[in-house]
């Protein structure tokens, strides 16, 4: 495993050490329209600023678009 790499939506991203909030801001996600799972567990929105991504984490950022 390459140091610093986090698997985010299937892609390797050098995001270890960033908080979830920092990563989401860098990737320009709209926080009102997403859900974040880290290693198959939901990251509550209230914890985005505290949870720090670690090397080897598997993250899914589910982005909701309009229509239904």
């Amino acid at each position, binding site marked *: 495993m390459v140091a610093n790499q986090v698997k985010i939506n299937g892609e390797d991203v050098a995001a270890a050490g960033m908080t979830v909030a920092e990563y989401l801001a860098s990737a320009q996600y709209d926080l009102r329209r997403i*859900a974040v799972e880290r290693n198959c567990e939901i990251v509550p929105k209230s914890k985005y600023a505290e949870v720090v991504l670690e090397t080897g984490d598997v993250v899914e950022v589910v982005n909701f*678009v309009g229509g239904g």
Partner: protein
Amino acid sequence: MACCKIPSPEEIRRALVQKQGELITEKLSQATVAICGLGGLGSNIAICLARAGVKKLILVDFDNVDVTNLQRQQYKAFQVGMPKANALVENLKEIAPYVELDACNEKVTEENIDKFVQNADVVCEAFDNPEAKSMLVNAVLEKYPQKNLVAASGMAGTDNANSIATRKISKHFYLCGDGKSDVNEGLELLAPRVMVCAAHQALTVIRIISGLEV
């Protein structure tokens, strides 16, 4: 034409077993599903699951039927103006008279979510608004991590329906759709594409209840 006799519960059950098999029919007959949002997704999911013989549907929507809904949602022209939950109950009773139906004319919020989802074996997220989708999914995953959740994102536009897929995100969380086509970017909403996504959700619900999703 004069009305024929409505099939008895036993006749309907036999017919379901003939088409779906004993296992799936038996599992569905004990299951409760909450459908949050009764538009193009929710109204079609509800009809699929009612026809398949689920025990109970909890149907939640705060909105009334609008004339623009008739293009892709399972309502009738004379129901324009009626609360969607009540209109859908009328229609489902004609289709599947023995399914238990709980109509809720309410907006789902983080505060009131428990009463809609706590007794459901599976929760369907079927809203149109992306912020409402996010709210429901986050609330269910945070408060009920063991609850099965089937959400949708991306069924707008005119792409081939093959881009709509079902993905398992985590142990109890499934996501259907193409993940990107956004009605808020001016894309069209075409009934067949929305119904394909609704069918993905309904099939995923049936697979979960039947123990086929492992």
